[in-house]
């Protein structure tokens, strides 16, 4: 079985496939590309959060005949972005529902002329009262979406929660909040579009999911499949931020290209990207928990709300993942999770690494520490008493059929971080130091791949082919944006085919050449698509044995057989379709069954110092211990974890989206603060490996996991350091001061 056999290439630190191109400055990102006769595009956006567009007028100071102007009236097909619900217009038509909503597009050969022109388009509105928060949306005084402002809701029930409260030894309640978070990929969104009558539309851009963009373009332009072509250019970071937005930008660029008859580039600058594109959903989670006298969980009642922004976009699936991760990796017989995504007049929130899980896990893991404090047990011990083990059922009554090694991960994390000794030492030293230190821990799991029956609906197709000049190409629509897709998938193919890593390349991420193997999201690439590539490779070997006389196992034998096969059959190609692991059952109505094909498990530990002079919390050291199945590439895997932890630290302590009247006020890098090389602590990454039978060479998901743990571990460490619970992130020094002042934990200023 491939998952246990020793491997030559899988598991080895081969160089990143496109690494050299990136290191010598040769890699072509969208803004590096020019097309013959190319124009530039700009977007005129709403300046109010909600209202009716009364008129659009053009200041005669501009010679408008030089410009191409596009409005909703120019959309040839459906004026909707095709995500789960088609409620978001491609261009606002008659009304606007958030600030910075696109209303009108301009194109001109000279980029500098566009800005002045955009400023000379006058839009008059009849404003309507906006809704900015979950609380305002819940009040339903203003209905801004559907009948009740609810974009989506779920109810997950297990056992009988209501029967427990009367007799439980302990009942603990808490409310936890998380803020919006910007992806801050260093490459802004960008797209180039071309149009002609024969070929239809071609777009090149920075994006994660070529077939998502393809689907929207087909609908917006009312074109058949073959007249829309989407090509991914080298993508400078995404983190979920280039999952849904590129469909909008591609439509805009293509509308301008069609009307102007020129290729059009739209490359956002940082201010526009920050103000107009998606962010992580803010959340508010209320927990009410019952435990028996031994600290075993009896019941959890969870009310989970996320702010979805003005349109549905991906909120329903984000909410789903949040719901399914809200109860943590614990055994609890009685559960009720009621979750809702609320509409507000804010730029729609979208996908971001973790996809709802970081919000839910922050609440659960912070709450665990409050429970521990309330009933007087050690937070580590409380978790240990309630961990899921192999054979246990989780909230959706999914039985853990694979080994679960939370105890082992916990032991390792405690040992590596010297957790107990440090806690004891800090408890002694804190009273006499102005810098207070603490240790915090978070235990969590993250489901790999699409939720429930999602992978079956996706029905992914992936494979390999062999080119005339003797290269094996991996055929997938899964894209590289730093996480290592190219490297991992070519490793898998090379391994399975018994050839060299350098024999395998990626087919261009171009919908004209690649099958739809689903989006590059949900930590599914290694596990789900990797498995498809592995199967397609093995299938190719079988084809070659059966039809081309492949006998030996050498590289030479393989390519010789490929040549014979090509003689006889024209091309050498092997594709496989997704098949669910056996025994999978999921009910979308009741939210019961196998929520995910597999889970990655982790224990994270943060060591934090709180400076009482500046009220700032610093992460001094960080340990990330996890089981993610087989590690396919040790260096890339470490890089994924470290990058996710750094983003998680930003999420907890630095990154705040400031909204003024629904518009992002700090939409510049100087004011949206992410950790620099001086702010990130040492990050110790430890993997325990248990190969997963149904993942590519034993892999499970890894990409999102590391964003789940840092925030709760850090806030738990802060609680340990200062003895005060803080339940809201981001926690900037100003916020910590406010918490301490409210609890009278800091000296009142005497003067003034």
């Amino acid at each position, binding site marked *: 079985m491939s998952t246990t056999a020793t491997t030559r290439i899988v598991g080895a630190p081969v160089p990143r496939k496109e690494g050299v191109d990136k290191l010598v400055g040769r890699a072509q990102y969208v803004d590096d590309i020019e097309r013959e006769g190319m124009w530039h595009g700009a977007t005129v956006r709403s300046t109010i959060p909600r209202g009716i567009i009364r008129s659009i007028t053009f200041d005669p100071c501009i010679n408008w005949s030089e410009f191409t102007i596009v409005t909703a009236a120019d959309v040839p097909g459906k004026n909707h972005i095709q995500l789960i619900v088609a409620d978001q217009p491609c261009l606002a038509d008659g009304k606007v529902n958030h600030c910075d909503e696109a209303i009108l597009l301009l194109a001109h050969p000279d*980029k*500098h002329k566009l*800005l002045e022109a955009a400023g000379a388009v006058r839009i008059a509105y009849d404003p309507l009262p906006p809704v900015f928060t979950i609380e305002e949306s819940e009040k339903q005084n203003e209905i801004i979406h559907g009948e009740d402002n609810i974009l989506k809701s779920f109810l997950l029930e297990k056992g009988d929660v209501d029967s427990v409260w009367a007799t439980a030894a302990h009942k603990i309640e808490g409310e936890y909040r998380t803020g919006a978070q910007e992806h801050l990929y260093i490459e802004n969104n960008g797209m180039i579009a071309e149009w002609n009558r024969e070929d239809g539309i071609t777009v090149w851009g920075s994006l994660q999911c070529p077939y998502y963009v393809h689907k929207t373009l087909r609908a917006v332009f009312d074109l058949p499949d073959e007249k829309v072509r989407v090509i991914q250019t080298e993508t400078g970071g995404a983190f979920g931020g280039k999952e849904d937005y590129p469909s909008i930008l591609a439509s805009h660029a293509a509308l301008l290209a069609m009307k102007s008859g020129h290729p059009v580039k739209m490359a956002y*600058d940082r*201010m526009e990207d920050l103000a107009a594109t998606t962010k992580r959903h803010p959340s508010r989670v209320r927990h009410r928990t019952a435990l028996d006298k031994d600290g075993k969980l009896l019941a959890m009642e969870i009310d989970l709300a996320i702010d979805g922004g003005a349109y549905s976009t991906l909120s329903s699936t984000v909410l789903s993942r949040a719901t399914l991760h809200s109860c943590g990796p614990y055994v609890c017989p009685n559960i009720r999770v009621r979750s809702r995504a609320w509409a507000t007049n804010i730029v729609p929130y979208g996908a971001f690494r973790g996809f709802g899980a970081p919000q839910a896990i922050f609440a659960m893991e912070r709450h665990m520490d409050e429970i521990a404090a309330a009933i007087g047990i050690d937070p580590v011990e409380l978790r240990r008493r309630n961990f899921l083990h192999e054979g246990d059922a989780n909230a959706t009554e999914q039985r853990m059929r694979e080994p679960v090694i939370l105890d082992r991960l916990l032991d390792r994390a405690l040992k590596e971080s010297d957790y107990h000794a440090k806690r004891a030492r800090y408890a002694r030293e*804190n*009273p*006499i*130091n*102005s810098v207070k230190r603490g240790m915090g821990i978070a235990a969590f799991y993250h489901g790999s791949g699409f939720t429930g029956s999602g992978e079956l609906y996706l029905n992914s197709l992936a494979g390999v082919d062999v080119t005339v000049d003797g290269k094996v190409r991996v055929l997938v629509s899964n894209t590289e944006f730093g996480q290592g897709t190219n490297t991992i998938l070519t490793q898998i193919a090379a391994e399975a085919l018994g050839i060299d890593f350098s024999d395998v390349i990626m087919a261009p991420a171009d919908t004209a050449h690649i099958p739809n193997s689903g989006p590059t999201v949900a930590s599914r690439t290694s596990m789900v698509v990797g498995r498809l590539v592995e199967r397609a490779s093995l299938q190719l070997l079988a084809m070659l044995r059966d039809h081309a006389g492949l006998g030996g196992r050498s590289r030479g034998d393989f390519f010789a057989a490929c040549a014979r096969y090509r003689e006889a059959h024209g091309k050498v190609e092997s594709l496989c379709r997704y098949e669910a692991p056996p025994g999978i059952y999921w009910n979308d109505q009741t939210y019961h069954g196998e929520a995910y094909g597999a889970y990655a498990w982790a224990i994270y530990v943060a060591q934090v110092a709180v400076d*009482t*002079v*500046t*009220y*700032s919390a610093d992460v001094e050291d960080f340990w990330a211990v996890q089981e993610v199945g087989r590690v396919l590439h040790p260096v890339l895997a470490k890089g994924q974890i470290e990058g996710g932890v750094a983003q998680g630290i930003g999420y907890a302590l*630095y990154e705040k989206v*400031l909204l003024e009247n629904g518009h992002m*006020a*700090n939409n510049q890098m*100087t*004011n949206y*603060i992410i*950790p*620099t*090389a*001086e*702010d990130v602590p040492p990050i110790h990454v430890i993997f325990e490996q248990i190969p997963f039978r149904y993942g590519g060479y034993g892999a499970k998901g890894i990409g999102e996991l590391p964003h789940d743990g840092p925030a709760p571990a850090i806030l738990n460490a802060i609680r340990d350091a200062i003895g005060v619970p803080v339940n809201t992130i981001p926690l900037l*020094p*100003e916020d910590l*001061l*406010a918490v301490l*002042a409210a609890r009278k934990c*800091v000296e009142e*200023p*005497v*003067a*003034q």
Partner: protein
Amino acid sequence: MRGNPETHELVAPGSLAAVLHLMAVEPGAWTPIAGGTELMVAHAAGRLNAPKLVSLWGVPELRFVHATDESIVVGAGATFADLRRSALITEELPLLAKAASWIGSIANQSRATLGGNLVNGSPAADSSPALLVYDAEIEIISARDSRRIPYHKFHTGYKRNALAVDELLYAVHLPRRFGHHRQYLRKVGTRRAMAISKVALGATAFIETGVIREIRLGAASLAAFPTRLHRTEDALLNKPITNDLIQTGRNAILTEALPIDDIRSTAEYRRRVAANLLEEFLFELLGVEKRP
């Protein structure tokens, strides 16, 4: 890039005399640009309101650090990288060296000039608290003449200063008499590096047998421009350092500081932290770490 380079003129006459001549002939028409780390940011944002610019970058007469018997003199065109590399600065003016190391990043320090930092006049400017507590003097030059004013009188309002339209900041004079003073500078920024200061406090004090004989406090982001905290200084001057005095100092700075809420922080935070910083310095004078 929101600005249009074609709408701005930029010349580089190359010598101080030539620059001053331009500015004398058309007073107010020319905006000097040194390292450009302020003006080019404005340019990128499309809000550079300066049709004609004259480059000070590479004007040799402005870029120097030298010493006389009484002072160390720093040319307005010296970059923060120059200051960090200068042994005179690191040895004799450690607070200024420290401040220089806090300005943005290495790439920023190799372009950002001391003159630009002061003339730009941000309330959060990092070099200001150090210059205030070292009692710096500013030398101003024009085709007409040259003059010197105390640095603490240089800023006259939010982003306003004592320069006339035809004048340049020429140099900063730092007296060499702080060798026996206790010195303190702490910046509280939005993060450890690449951080705009939310509040910063500098201090120099001369202590004689437990009594504060001389004290200067310079602050960033506690007012519309970098300022000395004269009233807090007065409250501490000629007093023996005791726990009570520390409380007096806290009260004084809480009254004197008039910070604002802005996109980076809150007035409340700035006041409290300023008081904590002062307390930290005073406890240092007392010879103990800050009380927990």
